């Protein structure tokens, strides 16, 4: 038996002990040393195999799978949000812009200081489908304005922080509260009754308090069929 052949046998099975192999190893110090090395290595292999690596492959792979699942879910969510955004937000953004444009077109509304009578306010509300129990001294502007194909009440209410514009949009439904800031005005459109209420402020008028009060004070009348 040649050294190469002996080493191949010992490499395949270090415990091998055929007569030919034993005879060769007995007369070849290098192969004997090689066998000792391989047997020592085999002891280590046996020890190593007793315990698989602590962290298995799956522990790395699973987060990837999870990551992919989350990424997919996020993509679906984003797409859904985008569609919802287009569906929900864009109309209210447009509505907000139109409200701002309307108020800009009536700059004198901000400047009125004279308190209106209950009759003036009632006239502005007429035909709008709402009634308002509002302290008339606080209202300094009340008109029924043409907006989006119908007349809507356009009021200016004085607050401690300044005037606040209110437009009662009984036919403009919004699904959620939406704040906006445009043309030097900050505003909010809130769902209310069968429609919504738009409240705009300049100079820090307390639009949120007014919006809340309006939601509370407005009585939505049954819509004519």
């Amino acid at each position: 038996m040649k050294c190469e052949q002996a080493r191949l046998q010992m490499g395949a099975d270090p415990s091998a002990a055929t007569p030919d192999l034993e005879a060769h190893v007995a007369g070849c110090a290098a192969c004997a040393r090689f066998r000792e090395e391989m047997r020592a290595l085999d002891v280590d292999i046996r020890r190593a195999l007793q315990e698989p690596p602590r962290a298995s492959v799956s522990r790395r792979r699973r987060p990837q799978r999870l990551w992919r699942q989350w990424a997919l879910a996020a993509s679906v969510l984003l797409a859904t949000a985008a569609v919802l955004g287009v569906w929900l937000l864009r109309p209210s953004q447009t509505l907000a812009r139109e409200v701002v444009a309307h108020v800009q077109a009536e700059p004198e509304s901000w400047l009125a200081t004279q308190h209106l009578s209950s009759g003036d306010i009632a006239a502005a509300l007429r035909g709008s489908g709402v009634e308002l129990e509002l302290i008339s001294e606080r209202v300094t502007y009340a008109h029924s304005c043409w907006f989006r194909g119908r007349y809507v009440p356009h009021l200016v209410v004085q607050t401690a922080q300044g005037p606040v514009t209110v437009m009662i949009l009984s036919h403009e439904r919004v699904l959620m509260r939406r704040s906006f800031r445009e043309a030097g005005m900050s505003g909010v459109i809130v769902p209310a009754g069968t429609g919504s209420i738009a409240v705009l402020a300049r100079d820090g008028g307390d639009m949120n308090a007014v919006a809340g009060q309006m939601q509370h004070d407005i009585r939505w009348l049954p819509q004519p069929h």
Partner: protein
Amino acid sequence: MRNSQPESPVSSVSERSPGADAQAPLTQLFESLRPDLVRFAHWLSRDRAVAEDIVQESLLRAWRSRDALREPASARAWLLTIVRREHARLYERKRLELVSLEEVVDTAAGPRLAEPDGDLLTLRNAIMRLPIEYREPLVLQVLGGFSTEEIARELTLSSTAVLTRLFRARNKLRAICGMTPVADVADGEVAR
């Protein structure tokens, strides 16, 4: 209506129907071998979760064909064979997700600081890195205790081919462990 035979050797003996009492020793035998089977499957699949699944399925198969087990003493080898075949079947059913070797090493190298024997960990990682055609006969031989002929039968290879693969597996590990690898061998050169 209760089943007349327990379906799985995994459920506890107390949950079994009265007729299964006679099978309790076999159940206990299977259960006692489960750690070995999981370890074996883990080395084959390189994935703990997959290994658990393989063993679970293997034990079910073994339980259904338990009449084929003549001697309890041969249960370990019998079950290891079933596990190996189940692992192979898994590969046939679906190509398992390929994982880069670097990923395996990175994963396993994580607890290096806590590992008391760094060389052993290196060796463990090196075995994990071995291609399945080398890792499988090595694990069968060292962990399973199978002879070359038994491995050859199981893998449907010639004994010479098995010896060649075993030689190459150890030669690769030898190099990784800092020892001088011997010259490679062409298929079929190793003779016993």
